[in-house]
């Protein structure tokens, strides 16, 4: 696969060449809130740390119409997914998360919505040269320039971006840029490697995962869960903003006599997530819910798909209103084991 260089001043032109495809990039919003469709003529800026809402929503929208119908009628109408999409500036952790989530959505049966969107998307990554305070990707199998889930990786080399195609889709994208690019020499690659090493060193937070997937079920009744969940508000911040959380709820929404079936993100931190019709709730308190969140990521998912469902992006730590810190929890898990 090829590696090319793009002069930074040519970035707008590069974006223009992608016209015809639907582009998603970190929103121009002051605090780079989330990925959003790029409006025509706009050049997405890449000077962000990471979005608050992960780009998972490009493949797995927070709300998605499955089909529409009339009350009392038999017919239904399904939305058509056909736009080719390019995600620009996806951080390696978030791209890795896509591969992790995909395992579930392609598991026993294919989830038609996710799979279709995945087929239509080209993911352009952006390596991290300045990881955030709570990043710990290196502890869970990722890294500042991890390529998993990416079709193309961009590395900021100062004056240039280094563009490495990783898949056919990535190659096609590079080809479409034509003469905007020049071939990358070995210096550029070396420089990249140096940057990545530096970035890795900047990552201060760390979790130890050895023995955790096997050990967690044994901590079922451990007091640590009560301790770490006592202050939990039971909100959905940690899960909604997690790039690997993928739970959804299905609802019929009716207005007048028209209705649609749609699915929307759900969170295992909500009480009603496991609430039975009978009124019984097998996860009755925040203790069980917190235990589930951690166990699912670090044990159940590993058991099923052989990968930890946490990419170390640090969002849940950054944004938890009451400082529930997954790194701290894992430390406690380690101590308890």
């Amino acid at each position, binding site marked *: 696969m090829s590696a090319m260089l793009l002069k930074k001043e040519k970035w707008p032109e590069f974006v223009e060449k992608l016209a015809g495809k639907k582009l998603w990039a970190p929103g121009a919003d002051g605090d780079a809130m989330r990925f959003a469709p790029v409006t025509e003529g706009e050049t997405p800026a890449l000077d962000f740390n990471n979005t608050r809402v992960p780009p998972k929503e490009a493949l797995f929208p927070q709300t998605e119409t499955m089909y529409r119908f009339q009350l009392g009628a038999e017919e239904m109408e399904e939305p058509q997914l056909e736009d080719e999409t390019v995600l620009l500036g996806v951080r390696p952790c978030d791209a890795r998360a896509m591969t992790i989530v995909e395992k579930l959505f392609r598991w026993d049966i294919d989830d038609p919505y996710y799979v279709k969107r995945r087929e239509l998307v080209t993911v352009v990554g952006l390596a991290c040269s300045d990881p955030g305070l709570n990043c710990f990707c290196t502890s869970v199998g990722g890294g500042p320039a991890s390529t998993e889930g990416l079709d193309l990786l961009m590395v900021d080399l100062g004056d240039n971006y280094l563009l490495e195609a990783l898949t056919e889709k990535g190659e096609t994208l590079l080809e479409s840029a034509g003469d905007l690019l020049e071939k990358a020499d070995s210096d550029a690659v070396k420089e990249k490697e140096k940057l990545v090493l530096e970035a890795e060193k900047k990552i201060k937070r760390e979790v130890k995962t050895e023995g955790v997937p096997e050990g967690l079920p044994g901590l079922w009744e451990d007091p640590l869960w009560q301790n770490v969940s006592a202050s939990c508000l039971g909100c959905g911040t940690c899960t909604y903003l997690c790039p690997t959380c993928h739970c959804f709820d299905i609802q019929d929404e009716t*207005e007048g006599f028209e209705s649609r079936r749609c699915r929307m993100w759900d969170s295992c931190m909500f009480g009603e997530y496991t609430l039975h019709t009978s009124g019984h709730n097998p996860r009755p308190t925040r203790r069980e819910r917190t235990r589930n969140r951690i166990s699912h990521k670090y044990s159940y998912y590993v058991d099923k798909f052989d990968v930890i469902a946490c990419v170390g992006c640090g969002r849940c730590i950054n944004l938890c209103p009451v400082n529930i810190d997954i790194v701290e929890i894992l430390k406690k898990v380690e101590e308890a084991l």
Partner: protein
Amino acid sequence: MSATFEPNIVAFLCNWCSYAGADLAGTSRERYPANLQIIRVMCSGRVNPLYVMNALQQGADGVLVSGCHPGDCHYMEGNYYARRRLGMLKDLMEFIGVDPRRFHMSWVSASEGHKWKEVVEKTVEDAREAGPFEGFRRRQIDW
């Protein structure tokens, strides 16, 4: 806003005064615009202020709540509660940018058929001026 825009108004009327007043308007063959549909409730105090939000969300361009005059409530005090609650809601709606012409409240007694006609005319005219509601209308989002 086109000149022919016909607003859709949802109105909540208490059974004893305003609904009876609207009936009287009919018996008296008053004429008023057909843009307003009435939902009957027993008392204006029954009107959950969130109905107003719900109506706007679901296709109304204007909302009216009408009850008995203060002191005349069939249930003694319901309209006083309605006034307080809906007054607060009106402040909130205006603050978030809902045109104040889209929400009205009135006191219409069982004997005020003509006043009812005037209230309808005012409500419809105001909503017409405010134009089609394009705020947080549900359908225009992703239905």
